[in-house]
């Protein structure tokens, strides 16, 4: 953690499915502590990029470095244990477990309990405190004993964030955290993200330009599997290539 290497460095990253190349040589560096947004039209490969970083897919070529160490092609749990956690675009929680159990399960590995089958889970004070803290942060404490599958959409999205931050990872990847939310819900989610990413590195895929320009320190624009620009929000707004490829229609 003390090393000066950037949180994430992607270089020459490629991913093909059969003859179809989705990610076509991505180079990207995210310094520690930065809030970085990835934008781009549908089908640009944003989610695929997240799958490559988080271990869901194995890269066809190139490297993914986390604090200087290669993680490309590692199993998701190994990457997670190194301190990188991600959320999903389509809500991906444990539907039959209660909200409480969902979050508590996500805290256990980081607290060192691993596969322990000799300790009562209810007596783990640190897991309980951490779970309660997360539920307070995502504002779901009063839903604690509800099966996660019965939550409303916005509540499930909040739980999705809760699962992502519960393990205390210092690099967070959030895949469209505000997708499908109303204005009020989006505002609350932005506040939540700002709060929970304090002191952490954030990479976020987002379609809502308001959210992007509000939160991001830097923005990368992904078009057809390539990063065409990576810069501060101000300069991205002014970038002609970006406007032509993507932004022009959405922000004007």
């Amino acid at each position, binding site marked *: 953690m003390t090393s000066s290497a950037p949180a994430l460095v992607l270089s020459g990253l490629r991913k093909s499915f059969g003859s179809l190349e989705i990610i076509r040589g991505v180079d990207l560096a995210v310094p520690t502590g930065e809030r970085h947004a990835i934008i781009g039209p549908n089908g640009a490969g944003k989610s695929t990029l997240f799958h490559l970083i988080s271990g869901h897919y194995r890269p066809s070529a190139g490297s993914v470095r986390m604090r200087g160490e290669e993680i490309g092609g590692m199993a998701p749990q190994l990457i997670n244990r190194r301190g990188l956690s991600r959320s999903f675009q389509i809500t991906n*929680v*444990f539907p*039959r477990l209660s909200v*409480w159990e969902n979050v508590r*399960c996500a805290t256990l590995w980081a607290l060192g309990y691993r596969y322990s089958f000799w300790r009562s889970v209810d007596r*783990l004070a640190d897991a309980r405190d951490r779970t309660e803290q997360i539920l307070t942060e995502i504002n779901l404490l009063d839903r*604690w*004993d*509800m099966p996660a599958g019965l939550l409303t959409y916005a509540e499930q999205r909040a739980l999705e964030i809760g699962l992502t931050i519960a393990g205390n990872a210092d690099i967070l990847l959030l895949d469209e955290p505000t997708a499908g939310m109303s204005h009020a819900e989006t505002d609350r989610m932005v506040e939540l993200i700002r709060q929970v990413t304090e002191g952490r590195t954030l990479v976020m895929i987002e379609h809502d330009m308001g959210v992007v320009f509000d939160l991001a320190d830097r923005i990368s624009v992904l078009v057809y599997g390539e990063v065409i620009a990576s810069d501060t929000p101000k300069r991205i707004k002014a970038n002609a290539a970006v406007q032509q490829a993507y932004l022009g229609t959405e922000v004007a």
Partner: protein
Amino acid sequence: MSKTTQNGAPGRPSGQGSGLVATAAIWIAVAVVLAVLPQVFSSGLAISTMCLMEIMIIFALSYNMLLGQTGLLSFGHAVFFGLGGYLTAHAMNAARGEHAPLPLEVFPLVGGATGLVFGILFGAVATRRSGTAFAMITLGIAELVSSSALILRHAFGGEEGVAFDRTRVLHLFGISFGPQEQVYYLIAGWCFLSMGGMYAITRTPFGRICNAVRDNPDRTGFIGYNTTTVRFLAFSMAGLFAGIAGGLAALNFEIVTSSAMGAAQSGTVVLMTFIGGVGNFAGPIIGAILVTYLQVMLSDITGAWQLYFGLLFMGMVMFAPTGIAGLLAMQMPLVRAGQFHRVLPWYVLALVPGLIAITGVSMMVEMCFHLTVNTADGPQMSFAHVAFDANSPLAWAVAAVLLAGGFWLFRRAGRKALDAYGSALEKARSGRAGR
């Protein structure tokens, strides 16, 4: 939800405190029931049936560590039951020959160790996959092991199996384990320990992660857990407890044959667990008791008992996929809110035509059975103490009317009962929220 709305502030939601006392009370009650049962039902048949039930409770609970807790459908769980039994039998014979100073009480551990070792061996292969592939691998392992039982005659004793005498080991406190009642207490003790152990495992970090793997294996990787490791550990532990059950079965019967690990035994544990209910810790216990009782009782009164058994399983899967425990759990909110009396009459109303329909079905089954299997006895038979001619159209008409009429009324009453349940639940919920 209700717990938090009631006292306003959510407080500490892990909900222990009062739960701990209730849990302890339940376990004490279980121990007392296990201890008192042979005094209440003291006939020889009753005691040996209860021995079998307790063995099956361990077996079904161990199976539910896979199916209900971790979401693994195995078709070969009897392998661990059978191998545990065989090794226990061999250990008994060896102990007799060398006068090993071991009491009978510890021999189920041999079964458990065997189950664990083979659970680790087979689990290392099977748990690399999940879902259908996992189910197919377990089916293959079951076939492999049960066919080698007939090939490796030296180890498995061929068709005769391996027999031994359970009284010829060290006696502690003068207990010889000759009388069945003494064996009952041995089995009851191990049943209690195993139930407690398996329940405790569900309440550990590992137990909760098993549930997470069952619900959403993909996501489990992204919270730091290796799903293959979780499945492997669950599979090995299920093998351990199935082995204990198999060891107890060996001590109970003083013989182990290859049928103990056959496909039928693997099937039985699936049925028990499903009929009892996979979603609840008590489900497999209920299933094991009910199915064992039906096996003993039905096989006594009808030759077609397996057919009834199959119909019961189909009925449960179709109409009550959460099992008996699931149906009972559905009533709990009503009982707590004092609304259960509203639905009870509707349940009785549905039950009566249901029983009539079942009477119609079993009359037809018995007539078919009598005409085909018992041909030598002629067409005269009796059903429910009524004598009649199985060839007469009148008897068939009566059976058909009972079945059709009963089923039609059952469907109507069933729908009414469901409506009643829905409105009572509504009332129970609004009553709580308003408080």
